[in-house]
C-alpha cells in the first residue's frame, strides 16, 4: 500500500526549538521564516528558513509580550509588535549602524491587527479602522506615510507572492476588500461578497479568517473559502469555493471543490493542486482546477484521486530521519497542533518542525485508471516528464486489448502541449527578428516546462526500447508508430526522420514492403535525403526501392547531384545525362565522370553518344570540340580514336 501515498512531507524539514512556556514561535509567510523567541528575546531569537541551513540568531531586550515579528524582504529590517498601537523597528542592514525606533499607528483609537512587509522597506499596518502604508527610513529612524485607507476591518489575509491583502469588512465579515501593493502604491481592487450558507439574525461576525486563504494557482489569484457543511441544507458535505480575483474587473466565483464530508479542514496549494486535509479521517484529497468536470459558469470538481493519508513520517529521536539505523518514532500526522500555511507549508510548533508538502506523481499512475485524465493531470505538474514517459512505456507494453484509442488519446494530449510550445517559440523568434527592442517586453521567451515532451524524448525513452521488444507483435509496433505520426501530423508538427526510419526498419524486418510502398505513395513518410538513402540501401531486398528513392530525390529538388550519382552507379549514363540536361546543369557537369561511366558499360555505341555530346558541348561553349586539359579526358580521347578512328573526332567546321 505504501506506493499509494501520493502526498509526502519534505525529507529535510526546517527544525526549530519547539514552542513552550519560555519559547514563543512565530511564522512569517512572506519570508517563510520561523522565529523562536526565548524569554521575549532576551535569551535569544533564532530565525530559520526557508531552508534549514541559513539561520539568524540575535538578542533583543524583553520589552513585553510579542504579538507579531517579521523581517522585511531580504532580512534588512526587523519589525516587532508588542502593543496594540505601536510597532518597533530594528535595522539589520549590514555596515549600517544598528538603530531601534518605534512607530505608532496614526488613526486615533485604532489598534493594530498586524503588519505585512511588501518590500525591503515598505510596510503596511492593518488596523481595525483601515490600512496605513509606510516607507521605513532607518537612517531617519522614522516612517513616512505613503498612503492610508479608512475601512472597518475584522481581520486580514495577506498573500506575499502576489502582494495582495484581503480585508474582511462589515458586520458578518463576508464582504472582502482586496488591495494590491506595488512599489509604493496601493491599488484598491473591487470588493466582493462571500456567499454564506446562513445569515444569522441579528447579524454577527460569521466568516472566520480560518476559512479564508489566498493563493496563486496556475498564475491566477484565488480566494479560497472553506464552506462548512451546514445541517439541514441539502449539500452533501463541505465545499471549497474558489473566487478568482482580477486586478481590474470584478471577482468571479470560479470553482467549487466538493469535499463530500464534514469536519475540520485545512488547505494547501502544491504544484497548482489544491490539497484539502481532513483532520478527523486523517486523509487529504487533491483537486486540480484544470481538470474540467463540466462546462458552465462554475466548475464543480471532485477529488482527482481517492482521499489518502500523507505518507507516514518518522522522526528520529535525535533529528529527522536521515540515517535509518537510528531509533525513529512515527510522527503523528494531522495532529491538532499542526498549523498549515500557504502555499505548501505545514508546521508542528509542538515538535519544532516545518515541512513542505510534496505531491508524488508515480503513485498517481496506478490510482488514475483513465489514462487520458491521468495525462491531463500529469501534464500540469512541474516535475512530470519522466513520469509521463514511463506511463507511455507502460501503456505500450501493457498489451491490453483496445489499447490503441487510449494510446491515441495520450499522444494527442502530449502533442497538444508540444505544439503550443513550438508555436510560442516560433512567435517569439519572429518577434525577435522583426523588432527586438520594441517587442521584447510583450514577448517573453517561452519557458519550456517539463510537460513539453518532444520527439527525441519519445524516441529515446519510449520508442527505441519498445520497438526492440521481442514479445510485442510487429503489427502493434507499426500501429503505434503510425498513431504517433498521425498525432504529430494532426498538430502540424514536422516529424523527425528517425521516426520514419524506425517505421521503415520495422517494416523491412518483417518483409512488409508493400505496406512500406503504400506509405510512401501517400507521402506518409515525408521526403528527405536520409530517407531516400535508406530506401536506396533496400534495393537488394526490394528492387522497386531504387525507383522510389530516385522519385523521392527528384521531389526534393535539392538532390540533383545525388540523382546523377545514383543513375551513373546503375550505369544509366544516358538517363543521367538526360536528367542533368532537364535541370539545366549540363554545361557544368564533369565530362570525365560521364565518360568513365560510359566506358564501364562496355557499350561502344553508348560511349560514342556520350563522347559526341560533350564534343558538341565543348564546341558550343568554347568554339572548339576538343577537351580542355583541365577536364582530364585524354584517356577517353585516345580510346575514342582507337575504337572509332581519329577521323571520327568532331572537326572544326571549315571557315
Amino acid at each position, binding site marked *: 500500500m505504501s506506493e499509494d501515498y501520493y502526498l509526502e512531507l519534505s525529507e529535510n524539514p526546517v527544525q526549530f526549538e519547539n514552542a513552550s512556556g519560555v519559547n514563543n514561535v512565530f511564522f512569517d509567510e512572506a519570508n517563510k521564516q520561523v522565529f523562536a523567541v526565548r524569554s521575549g528575546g532576551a535569551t535569544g531569537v533564532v530565525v530559520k528558513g526557508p531552508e534549514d541551513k541559513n539561520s539568524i540568531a540575535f538578542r533583543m531586550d524583553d520589552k513585553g509580550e510579542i504579538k507579531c515579528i517579521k523581517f522585511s524582504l531580504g532580512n534588512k529590517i526587523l519589525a516587532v509588535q508588542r502593543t496594540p498601537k505601536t510597532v518597533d523597528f530594528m535595522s539589520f542592514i549590514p555596515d549600517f549602524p544598528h538603530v531601534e525606533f518605534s512607530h505608532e499607528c496614526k488613526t486615533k483609537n485604532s489598534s493594530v491587527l498586524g503588519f505585512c512587509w511588501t518590500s525591503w522597506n515598505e510596510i503596511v499596518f492593518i488596523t481595525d479602522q483601515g490600512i496605513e502604508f509606510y516607507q521605513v527610513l532607518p537612517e531617519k529612524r522614522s516612517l513616512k506615510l505613503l498612503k492610508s485607507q479608512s475601512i472597518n476591518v475584522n481581520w486580514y489575509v495577506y498573500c506575499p507572492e502576489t502582494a495582495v491583502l484581503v480585508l474582511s469588512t462589515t458586520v458578518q465579515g463576508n464582504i472582502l476588500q482586496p488591495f494590491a501593493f506595488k512599489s509604493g502604491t496601493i491599488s484598491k481592487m473591487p470588493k466582493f461578497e462571500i456567499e454564506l450558507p446562513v445569515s444569522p439574525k441579528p447579524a454577527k461576525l460569521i466568516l472566520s479568517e480560518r476559512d479564508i486563504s489566498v493563493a496563486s494557482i496556475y498564475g491566477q489569484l484565488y480566494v479560497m473559502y472553506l464552506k462548512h457543511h451546514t445541517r439541514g441544507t441539502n449539500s452533501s458535505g463541505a465545499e471549497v469555493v474558489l473566487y478568482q480575483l482580477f486586478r481590474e474587473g470584478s471577482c468571479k466565483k470560479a470553482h467549487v471543490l466538493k469535499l463530500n464530508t464534514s469536519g475540520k479542514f485545512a488547505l494547501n496549494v502544491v504544484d497548482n493542486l489544491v490539497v484539502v486535509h481532513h483532520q478527523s479521517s486523517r486523509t487529504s484529497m487533491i483537486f486540480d482546477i484544470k481538470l474540467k468536470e463540466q462546462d458552465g459558469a462554475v466548475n464543480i470538481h471532485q477529488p482527482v484521486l481517492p482521499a489518502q493519508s500523507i505518507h507516514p513520517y518518522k522522526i528520529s529521536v535525535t533529528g529527522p530521519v536521515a540515517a535509518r539505523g537510528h531509533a525513529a518514532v512515527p510522527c503523528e500526522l494531522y495532529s491538532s497542533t499542526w498549523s498549515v500555511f500557504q502555499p505548501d507549508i505545514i508546521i508542528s510548533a509542538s515538535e519544532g518542525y516545518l515541512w513542505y508538502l510534496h505531491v508524488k506523481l508515480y503513485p498517481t499512475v496506478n490510482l488514475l485508471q483513465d489514462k487520458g485524465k491521468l495525462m491531463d493531470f500529469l501534464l500540469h505538474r512541474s516535475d512530470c516528464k519522466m513520469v509521463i514517459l514511463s506511463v507511455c512505456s507502460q501503456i505500450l507494453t501493457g498489451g491490453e486489448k483496445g489499447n*490503441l484509442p487510449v494510446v*491515441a488519446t495520450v499522444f494527442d494530449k502530449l502533442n497538444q502541449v508540444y505544439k503550443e510550445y513550438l508555436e510560442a517559440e516560433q512567435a517569439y523568434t519572429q518577434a525577435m527578428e522583426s523588432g527586438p527592442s520594441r517587442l521584447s517586453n510583450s514577448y517573453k521567451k517561452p519557458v519550456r516546462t517539463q510537460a513539453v515532451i518532444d520527439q527525441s524524448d519519445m524516441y529515446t525513452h519510449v520508442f527505441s526500447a519498445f520497438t526492440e521488444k521481442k514479445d510485442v507483435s510487429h503489427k502493434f509496433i507499426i500501429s503505434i508508430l503510425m498513431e504517433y505520426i498521425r498525432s504529430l501530423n*494532426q498538430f502540424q508538427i514536422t516529424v523527425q526522420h528517425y521516426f520514419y526510419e524506425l517505421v521503415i526498419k520495422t517494416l523491412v524486418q518483417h518483409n512488409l514492403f508493400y505496406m512500406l510502398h503504400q506509405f510512401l505513395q501517400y507521402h506518409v513518410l515525408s521526403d528527405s535525403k536520409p530517407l531516400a538513402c535508406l530506401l536506396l540501401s533496400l534495393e537488394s531486398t526490394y528492387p522497386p526501392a531504387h*525507383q522510389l528513392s530516385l522519385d523521392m530525390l527528384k521531389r526534393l529538388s535539392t538532390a540533383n547531384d545525388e540523382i546523377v550519382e545514383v543513375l551513373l552507379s546503375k550505369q544509366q549514363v544516358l538517363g543521367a545525362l538526360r536528367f542533368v540536361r532537364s535541370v539545366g546543369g549540363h554545361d557544368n557537369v564533369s565530362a570525365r565522370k560521364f565518360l568513365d561511366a560510359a566506358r564501364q558499360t562496355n557499350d561502344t555505341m553508348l560511349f560514342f553518344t556520350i563522347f559526341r555530346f560533350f564534343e558538341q558541348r565543348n564546341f558550343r561553349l568554347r568554339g572548339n570540340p576538343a577537351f580542355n586539359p583541365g577536364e582530364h579526358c585524354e584517356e577517353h580521347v585516345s580510346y575514342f580514336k582507337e575504337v572509332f578512328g581519329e577521323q571520327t573526332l568532331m572537326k572544326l567546321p571549315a571557315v
Partner: protein
Amino acid sequence: MYLIKGMPIRLLQGRTNELQTHLNADDQSKNGFWNTGKTFGPREGEEEKKILFYHPCEVEKNEKIRNVGLCEAIVQFTRTFCPTKPAKSLHTQKNRQFFHEPEESFWMVMVVRNPMIEKPNKDGKPPTIEYQEDEILDSVYGAVLQQCYSMYKLFNGTFIRTFEAGGVELLIQKLEKFFYRYIQTLHLQSCDLLDVFGGLSFFPLDKMTYLKIQSFVNRVEESLSLVKYTAFLYNDQLIWSGLEQDDMRILYKYLTTSLFPRHTEPELAGRDSPLRPEVTGNLLHYGRFLTGPANLKDPETKFRFPKIFVNTEDSYEELHLIVYKAMSAAVCFMINASVELTREFCEQLDALVGPQLTLLASDICEQYNINKRISGPEKEPQFKFIYFNHMNLAEKSTIHMRKTASVSLTSVHPDLIKILGDINSDFARVDADEEIIVKAMTDYWVVGKKSDQRELYVILNQKNANLIEVNDEVKRLCAAVQ
C-alpha cells in the same frame, strides 16, 4: 531521339460494331481446358479425360478432343525452340488461340474469333467474308486469360490443391461451377490496355486523412483480433491494402467489376435504398454488409461469407471475405476461414465499424471536396490519358468512364485504344525507357512514354499540330503532373 511508328489508318464503316457482335456471340468464343498431367489421361483413347472444362459444352466430343490435341501439339512443338518460354498464342485466319500454363501441367486455352467483315457481292452471290487478323492484341487477351485464372484461384484456390483434396471430380465440378457464370461476364469486346495493366485505381487523399484511415484500420484490427487483413476503398478506389499486391489486384478487380456494381445498380434504380441509417446504441450510422448478412435484424439471416484464397505461393490462406460499406467507403475484412463467423461477431463488427466508418466516409468526402476546390474547376482538357505505374500498379485513365457490371465505356474511338495497345506491346519488348509518337486519323496524335517504371499514354486532338508541338505539349503535361 524518337522512334516513330506509323499506323496505317484504315477507315472501315461499321467495322467496330461487327467486332462486338462477333465476339459477343457465345459460340464464337471458346474456352478450353485440358490437362497433360502425368497422373492420368495420357493413354491412347482416353484423351477426353484430359479435358477438365470445355466451353461451350455442347461441342461434340471428338471435336473437343481434336481441338485440344491441336493445342497440345503446338505447345509441345514450340517448346523445342524455347523450353523456357512456351508459345503464348497462335494466329490463324479465323481465330486467335491463347495458351496459358498457370500451374505446372495445367493449361488454359482461350480461342477468340477474329472480327470479320461481310462484303456484299453483286449478282446475288453470298457475301465474301474477310477476317481481320490484326485486330486482336495478344497482350490484351493473354492478360484476360491470366485474369480468368487469377479470379478462379481467388475463390477456389489452386488446381493442384483441389485435385489433391478431391480428385479430378472435385476439380471438374469447381471449374464448371465457376466458369459457367464467369465466362458470361467476360465482355471480351471491351477488353483493352487496362486489362493488360490490371492496375489499381488509388483514391487521391491528403496525408492526414490517410493517417486517420490507418488509425481506423489498426483500431479495428486490434479490437477484432480475428481480422487478419483489411483493405479500404473509397468511391471504388483503393486507399489501403493489407493484402499483398498480387492478391489485392485480383480482389480489386472482383470488387470493382462485380460486387460493387451489383450493389450500386439496385441503388441507382431506387430499390433497396441503403441510405436508411442503422441505429446502434445511440449512434446513427449507414454501415451495411455487402457480403454475408443482408439484414442483421432478420432472425433467419445466414452468416455465410464468400471464401477467398490468398498467398497461394507460400502460406496458402483461406479466408472469409467480409465487405462492409458505409456511404462511399468500403472495407474488406479478411478472417481465417477455419473460424466460424457468428451473429454475435457480425453484430459486434457492425456496432464497432458502422459509426466510425460513417464518420470517416464523411471526413474523406469533405477533404476530397476541399482538394477539388483548391485545384480549381474541372475543365474539359485537350487531351486524354492512361497512366500506369509498374511499381505500385497504380493506374489512372481519363479515357474510360466508370466501369459497370455490364460494359466498360470509353470516350474515344476504339481505333485509338488499339493504337495504345500496340504501343504498349512495343514497350514490352525492350526494357529501356522509350517514347513513341503516332499520328492517327484526322487530328489525333497518340503519344506513349515509358520511363522510371511508369507508362503514360496521351491522346491529343489538336488541329494541324506538328510533331514538335505535340512533343512540347506532352512535356508540359508531364511537368504539370509531377
